[in-house]
Structures are given as C-alpha cells and as structure tokens.
C-alpha cells in the first residue's frame, strides 16, 4: 500500500513495502502530471486577463438623447459578451460564468475605462453644457432590471461647464472604477448638445483580481 505526501497526495512506497517498483514510479509520474498541468493552466488563466475593448471605428452623429453605441469589438477574451438592452440605448458587457478562465471567483474587481471623444456641433460660449458618463453594474442574482445601480457618481466634464466650447474641439470623459459585483456592466453617455461622437471613442473592461 503506498503512502501519500501532504498536501499534494503524491504516492510513494509505504513502510511495509520493500523498495520501489516500476508501479511506484508510474504512480508517482501519473500523480505529478495532472498537478503540473493544473498549475500551468492557472498561470495561463492569469496571463489571459479577461479584457474587453469596444470602440467606434468611425465618427457618428449624436443628437441629445441618442443611445451610446460602439460598432467595433476591438478586443474580447474570456467569453465577455457585448449586447445592448431592449431599447438599444446602453452597452451591456457580460462576463459569462463558465466561459471565464477562472470561473467561480466572482465577484471580482474590474477596471473600467469609458473614453468618449465628443465634438459639439453648435457651441455657444457660456451655455454650461454638461457631458455625463456613467458606468453601472447589474447583478442578475439580486432580481430584476430595477437592480441596476450606479457604481460612481456621473463623470461630468466640468471644465466646459462655464467656459464655452470651441467648435470642433474634443472632450474626453474617462475614469476608472472598481466593480465588486458579478453580472453585467452598463456604460451610458448623455450630452445636452448635439454633435459627433468621434472615432476611437472606446469602452474597456479589465478584470484585475478576485475578491
């Protein structure tokens, strides 16, 4: 009867055995093999950090009230999905449990960047325009759609609020937040002025670590 190491349960000949035979070496090799494979898989999962980048590949006209939309998935791994809600007015990003390389570790900490480059089409100095970007998380385990909640106060471009906007200038709204929840993430944008959302505007999501 073999004995086993602790904690990895590697087999070796027991005290009552006399020496080691071929079967002992084979048993040890077959025990070590999956352990090494599992460790390599863990490292691969860590190196394949779940990341999503969606962006606009070309300019798109924006009218106040329009939905935020990105037309290109720049990068997506680990089964992160991109959809829109039933009104088409938001971006949903869903890390799919099971497709995740380190499934079962939710909730996790995520870093979000929401960068929007916006050009006002009819700027009026001193009008106090407000450009707002909000990132929210939706936890499906807690109930219906009403459970959507913001993870931070809306990001407002404050510098343009009183100074007026130069026609053709860009605005960049961006911030990073930690998302201690599983489920879907929503980025929305609203501006009180018509204009253009420029190419290279993007939304990104990166898993940092489990909790």
């Amino acid at each position, binding site marked *: 009867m073999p004995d086993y190491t602790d904690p990895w349960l590697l087999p070796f000949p027991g005290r009552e055995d006399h020496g*080691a*035979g*071929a*079967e002992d*070496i*084979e048993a*040890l*090799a*077959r025990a*070590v*093999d*999956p352990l*090494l*494979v599992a*460790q*390599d898989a863990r*490292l*691969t999962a*860590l*190196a*394949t*950090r*779940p*990341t999503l*980048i969606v962006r606009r590949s070309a300019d798109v006209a924006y009218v106040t009230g329009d939905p935020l939309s990105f037309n290109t998935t*720049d*990068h997506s*791994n680990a089964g992160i999905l991109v959809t829109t809600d039933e009104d088409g007015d938001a971006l949903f990003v869903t890390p799919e449990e099971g497709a995740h390389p380190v499934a079962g570790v939710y909730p996790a900490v995520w870093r979000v*960047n929401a*960068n929007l*480059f916006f050009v006002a089409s009819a700027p009026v*100095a001193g009008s106090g325009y407000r450009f707002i970007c909000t990132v929210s998380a939706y936890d499906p385990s807690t109930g219906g759609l009403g459970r959507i909640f913001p993870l931070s106060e809306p990001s407002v471009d404050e*510098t*343009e609020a009183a*100074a*007026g*906007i*130069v026609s053709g*200038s*860009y*605005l*960049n709204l*961006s911030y*990073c937040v930690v998302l201690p929840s599983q489920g879907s993430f929503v980025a929305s944008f609203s501006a009180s002025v018509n204009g253009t959302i*420029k*190419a*290279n*505007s*993007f939304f*990104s999501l*990166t898993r940092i670590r489990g909790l």
Partner: protein
Amino acid sequence: MPGATPTLALPFPYLDEVVDADSVKNLADAVDSELNTLITDATATTRRPAALVLRDTGTQAFASGAAMANLTFTTEHYDNNGMASLGTNNERLTIGTAGVHQITARVLLDGGTAPEISALMLTITANGTTVAGTKRRGGTTAAFSSCCGVDISCVLMRRFNASDIVRAQFGWTGLTTPRNVIRAELGARWICSL
C-alpha cells in the same frame, strides 16, 4: 522503452523493465524541466511588461496655437521590457510585446502668473497616427492661471503589436507667449495577450 504520462510525457518504467536509479532520475529530470517551465511562465505573469518615462528635469517649450507636437522625456522611471530608449529617441515608447496595453500620458504646463492659457490638448499616437482622440481641457477664454501649472492627462486601452511606436502629443491655446512643459509622463502597461 519506458512508459510516459499522457500529457507531459513524464517517464516511468513498465512492469517488465528493470527498476534502477536511472528510472527515478529520468522522472526527476522530467519533473525538474516542467517546474522550470512553470517558473518561467509565473515570472512572465508577474512581471508584465511596463514602462514609464518622465520629464522630471528641464523644460520643453510649446508655442501657443501651434500644431500639436511630440512631448519629449528625460528619465526612464522604469522599463522591464526594453520599451524606452531615451538616448536614441526621447519622444517614444516602443512596444516590446504584442498585446492589449494601457497607455497613459500626462503633462503639466507652466501656468504663468496671469490668465494666459485657454485650453490644453493632449493625444496619444501609434506609429504616427492619432489613436486616442484628442483630450481637450479648457475653452475659448483664458481660463487658467496658476503658480503651480495646469495639467491634463489621457488614458488609452488598445491592441498593439510589437515594435509599434507610442508617442504623446501636446498643444495649447491662449496668449502668444510660449509656455514650458515642466513635467510630463508617458506610460505603457501590458494588460493581456492578443
């Protein structure tokens, strides 16, 4: 011919083979090699490519209203992937390992003593092409005056290939007197493989 495990081909003797010291040594050597591979992978995972270059000494003058120009840097704060070579090219990071990278840029402009600066503009380029949009801070009127300077920053997440060249470009508008960039930084951090 010894047997071997199905995945990593760790060797072991068959039942009809002679078991000797080499039987154990062969397995030990194979495990040793696999552990080395694991250590290499773990090191790569924990030492993700990253670089940060700074302007933390001297100044770089920018004329008001001029076309946006590359920021230049003086100091390699850290670089674990050979991305910075300021002695050769002091305005860039060269991506060392293909993958999604987070690029950060920040600049601090001498604000002067009177309201002279209307707006700051900052963007990030890849191989000479703007890829981040241009971040703008400020409007049409001279809004900033500061004894400490006026800053602007920009963040980008994007796929990059090895050898891609990343730069940060800066410009400002306001009165005509040139202003100096007194601090600047450009960073690149590998996030994940493509």
